């Protein structure tokens, strides 16, 4: 993946507007968080291939870390801490946030076809 280019990602996000799309959303600090540090908590969320439709999409950020939000008819989807992006298999938008060691902390991915499962 490469550092987020805001305008390009914004354009890509808009290409999914008002279409039925599949979303992958996750955040994690790893299964070993409280093993390595007893004061830490293990926290993670994962949802893959959820079919949604959104009418607005926006990426916001300061040049280093970004947030992306999708507005749906009856709710919202957002992810915070995104740092990198990639167009995968020519059409899937992958966004992820990595820590300084390159470990994935958060991911938001959008595709018109399901992600492999």
């Amino acid at each position: 993946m490469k550092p987020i280019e805001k305008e390009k990602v914004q354009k890509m996000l808009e290409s999914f507007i008002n279409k039925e799309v599949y979303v992958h959303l996750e955040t994690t600090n790893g299964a070993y968080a409280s093993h390595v540090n007893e004061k830490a908590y293990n926290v993670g969320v994962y949802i893959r291939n959820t079919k949604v439709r959104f009418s607005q999409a926006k990426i916001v950020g300061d040049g280093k870390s970004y947030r992306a939000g999708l507005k749906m008819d009856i709710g919202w989807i957002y992810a915070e801490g995104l740092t990198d992006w990639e167009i995968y298999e020519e059409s899937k938008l992958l966004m992820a946030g990595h820590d300084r060691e390159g470990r994935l902390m958060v991911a938001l991915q959008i595709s018109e076809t399901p992600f492999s499962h």
Partner: protein
Amino acid sequence: MMEKHVVVIYPHPDDESFGAAGTIAKFREQGVPVTYLCGTLGEMGRNMGSPTFANRETLPEIRKKELMQACKVLDVDLQMLGYRDKTLEYEDRQEVASHLKGIIEESEPSLVITHYPDHAVHPDHDALGAAAIEAVRLMDPDKRPTVWAQAITNTHVEDLGKPDVINDVTANFDKKMDAILSHKSQASGILKNFNQDGNIPDDLKEEAKKRLGKESFYIWKF
């Protein structure tokens, strides 16, 4: 006693290398066949290489290749079980156990190595360990292989007592390190964790040897 066939059951590509590579290498030196039943492809790993070269979508295929490479280094047969990383504890325990039982009955190992349920830190370790032990429990008692269960919590000695089997694997450490480093997307991230300041020390191997030079197991009592 010489083992006839050893089956290792862990959920992730790299569990075999970090957890049991030295023990596996010893068995292979004795000419004992070893099969690794790997539960998942570690699809949900956080480590993406350092510097990053994988993403959430490419990681499974990358880890599959790394797993095959590690198994080549360790000279063991590999069977991938096809579950998905981080979901094993939500699967039907009996279904997984019966899946494993079928494989174990077919290959008739004398020894099964797996994780010690509830003392193995990662939910997948606990769940697959429990299913493996359940699989052996369901077998005819006369035909059951011995089970070595690996506990990796910080408190396992306090909680369970001293392990029954403690293998000093420093003599095979080069092989173990080669196996670990086969998991390129994972190894550096995990090894870096050994060092508080996040730098790989020059004597990384020495540090790894200190941390991973012993592989210990509890003999499961049915």
